[in-house]
């Protein structure tokens, strides 16, 4: 552990160090990692030069784990233990997953999120995803030759709270500090917009392996403002494959398949779909383990016809997003295509017809999301370059509300609200002396609770005895910039307070994460205590550095006594960094944070005043 660099008063610490940050596109079919190198966003390839990592994880009987291409090779041999498209299971229960009957896995119907039974035991989709993230993290560390300060991980814009929470958990499990969860179409818009210095209103049509998103953004002077988003978290290229799979079965008049043969045929269907991008017709020949042979011919027109309803569905969702944004098709300046599935010619044609213009395909639809994520990661890491003074304003895709009488939903935060957002609503007791109140938090657009997704239930206890209707219980919903929700309730009228914070029931608890981390670390032969110490040191350094930067620019806001208090808290924390007491470090971090609270408030006030005076804070 190197000693902290001592900087002159008034100078920020290590001004020229480039902080290593990455963007990760954790896709249904493929995943990528990208970073900024010499000012340019680049995808990092594996040792064989390939950027795309197939999102496939195989658990071997001997305890080994294969990720990516090596797992692909085993897909048809060992389908039960080779998990493909795990993204479809993130934050989902068994009943949420379509075509589950066609999948070769043994599912466990566990509360909240389903699990998969493998030869290495029961695995949560979060653990499977973490294996993919681990490979990408290692690739980045080798390639960049240093420790990462964090990652921006992309999620479909239409992911709900449970799916986002699951993604964040997977990153934690893979030892990645999540700088931000970023919506995939927004990431693509950033990559496209910064590349082309675009201004105006754009639509991003993002059809990935398992998800569809349509986002409408306004680009003005470096601000990317999402106006509306819509989509379907269970509609993607996989569904096109599935239609083709069913069509082949039907054409070839084949009896029910073994899971190995089904895996084979699924891969064949995918390959055929890809061939149809460039060929007008493709012969499908496959010899099955059962001895039967498939030999059929498909034309591009037939494929387009059988998948027309899927394309039609995406356009319906597009129309809705436009209406939510209050825009006509004619007001859209350009349409950016994202996701491998947008390579299908009939998809491109349908989108072109809908918008009355040719979509933009000059950026690689497989890479554009990762590149945008890398740009955001770089900006969040504080590596500001000349063109990095931009800002993202994203929205929440689905409404959030509470269950009320009769199983109805009372919406608290409507969909497409700009993040972050906080809303409070007052409720009261309906019985004399009512001591507790139950809350049920749901997400979705429908009016009935039963049709929405249940996120959390909690109870507020200890309400002092009062007449019915006299208590004032304020429930506050807060959604942060990652789109993650926290809810609290507080009884205020009597001066007595009780408050609760809830985590969505689909997320893993901190204890579960800790257990999984421990297991993973033991497997890697790592030392848990050393890792915890290191994490606290990094956090302490981060806080010291941020404080020094703040002091350098705004030290004048403090009087000598206040300044001395902060300086001594910094010195104390520095001393602790040199030691090896994890717990004391935590206390020191909290002490410095407390010492700077008032300073932070003054800085924020000054920043706002500065903004309104038409000047940046540095200029005042």
């Amino acid at each position, binding site marked *: 552990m190197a000693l902290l660099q001592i900087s002159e008063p008034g100078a920020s610490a290590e001004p020229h160090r480039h902080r290593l940050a990455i963007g990760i596109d954790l896709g249904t079919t493929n995943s990528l990692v990208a970073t900024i190198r010499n000012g340019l966003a680049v995808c990092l390839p594996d040792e064989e030069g390939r950027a795309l990592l197939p999102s496939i994880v195989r658990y071997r009987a001997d305890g080994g784990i294969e990720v990516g291409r090596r797992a692909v090779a085993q897909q048809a041999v060992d389908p039960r233990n080779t998990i493909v498209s795990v993204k479809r299971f993130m934050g989902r229960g068994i009943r949420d997953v379509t075509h589950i009957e066609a999948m070769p896995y043994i599912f466990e119907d566990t509360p909240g999120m389903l699990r998969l039974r493998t030869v290495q035991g029961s695995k949560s989709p979060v653990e499977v995803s973490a294996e993919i993230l681990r490979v990408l993290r290692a690739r980045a560390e080798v390639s960049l030759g240093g420790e990462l300060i964090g990652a921006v991980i992309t999620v479909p814009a239409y992911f709900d709270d449970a799916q986002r929470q699951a993604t964040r958990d997977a990153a934690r499990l893979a030892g990645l500090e999540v*700088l*931000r969860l970023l919506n995939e179409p927004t990431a693509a818009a950033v990559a496209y917009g910064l590349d082309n210095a675009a201004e105006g209103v754009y639509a991003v049509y993002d059809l990935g392996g398992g998800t569809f998103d349509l986002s409408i953004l306004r680009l*003005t*002077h470096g*601000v990317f403002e999402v106006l509306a988003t819509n989509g379907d978290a269970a509609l993607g290229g996989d569904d096109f494959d599935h239609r083709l799979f069913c069509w082949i079965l039907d054409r070839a008049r084949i009896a029910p398949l073994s899971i190995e043969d089904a895996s084979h045929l699924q891969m064949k269907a995918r390959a055929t779909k890809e061939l149809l991008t460039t060929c007008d017709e493709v012969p499908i020949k496959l010899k099955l383990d059962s001895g039967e042979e498939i030999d059929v011919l498909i034309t591009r027109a037939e494929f387009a016809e059988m998948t027309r309803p899927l394309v*039609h*569905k995406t*356009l*319906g969702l597009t*129309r*809705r997003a436009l*209406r939510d944004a209050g825009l006509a098709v004619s007001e859209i300046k350009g349409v950016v295509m994202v996701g491998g599935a947008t390579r299908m010619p009939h998809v491109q044609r349908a989108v072109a017809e809908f918008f009355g213009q040719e979509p933009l395909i000059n950026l690689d639809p497989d890479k554009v999301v990762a590149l945008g994520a890398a740009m*955001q990661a770089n*900006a*969040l*890491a*504080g590596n500001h370059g000349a063109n990095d003074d931009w*800002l*993202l*304003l994203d929205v929440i895709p689905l409404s959030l509300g509470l269950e009320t009488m009769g199983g109805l939903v009372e919406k608290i935060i409507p969909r497409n*609200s*700009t*993040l*972050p*957002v*906080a*809303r409070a609503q007052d409720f009261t007791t309906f019985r004399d002396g009512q001591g507790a109140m139950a809350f049920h938090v749901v997400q979705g657009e429908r009016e009935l609770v039963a049709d929405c997704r249940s996120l959390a239930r909690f109870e507020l206890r200890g309400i002092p005895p009062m007449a019915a209707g006299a208590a004032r219980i304020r429930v506050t919903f*807060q959604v*942060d*910039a990652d789109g993650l929700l926290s809810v609290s309730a507080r009884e205020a009228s009597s001066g007595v307070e009780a408050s609760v914070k809830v985590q969505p029931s689909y997320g893993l608890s901190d204890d579960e994460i800790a257990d999984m981390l421990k297991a993973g670390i033991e497997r890697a032969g790592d030392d848990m205590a050393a890792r915890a110490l290191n994490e606290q040191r990094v956090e302490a350094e*981060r*806080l010291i*550095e*941020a*404080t020094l930067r*703040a002091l350098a620019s705004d030290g004048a806001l403090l009087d000598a006594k206040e300044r001395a208090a902060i300086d001594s808290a910094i010195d104390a924390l520095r001393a602790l960094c040199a030691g090896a007491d994890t717990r004391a470090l935590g206390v020191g971090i909290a002490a*410095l*944070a*407390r010492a*700077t*609270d008032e300073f*932070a*408030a003054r*800085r*924020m*006030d000054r*920043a*706002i*005043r*500065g*903004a*309104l005076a*038409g000047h940046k*804070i540095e200029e005042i």
Partner: protein
Amino acid sequence: MDLTVDFFTLFRLPRTFRIDLAELDARYLEIQSQVHPDRHVRAGEGERRLSMQWAARANEAYLTLKKPLERARYLLSLAGRDPEIERNTIMEPEFLMEQMEWREAVQEARQGGDHHELERLHHRLRLDLKKHHAELASLLDDRQDYAAAAGLARRLMFLEKLLAEIDKTLAELEDGMDN
């Protein structure tokens, strides 16, 4: 400046119904570019929390001032008048009749699956609202007649609800077409 500052002061705009929307947009973006959590990712916990609170506040303020009816209601609440409280005022029979006619028209178009008629109703209602917004401006800014403004705002709440229903019906018809 603290988090409880009123929205007009926050954006340094005059406390009137007629505001320059371009100016509102610009002020909003200026503030967000200072307070947004993305600008404070590497700061201490206190600053990050504060940044989120300010950014959420700026979003709420922007949304309130951007929509004419919301802006009017906010102005009324600053003046100590809440249109919600005016719910006891008796609605003029003409207005109620008009409401019933509107609802019948929407109902009819819904049953007939008449997409074009719904679009037409949507546009007519939009124009109507625009006219009323001009009226609100005159009541609030020129005459300071808050009682009349509150009454009008209350009627407009009905019209906006109706507009939302038309839009919802349109969406349902489109869904029907998609499936």
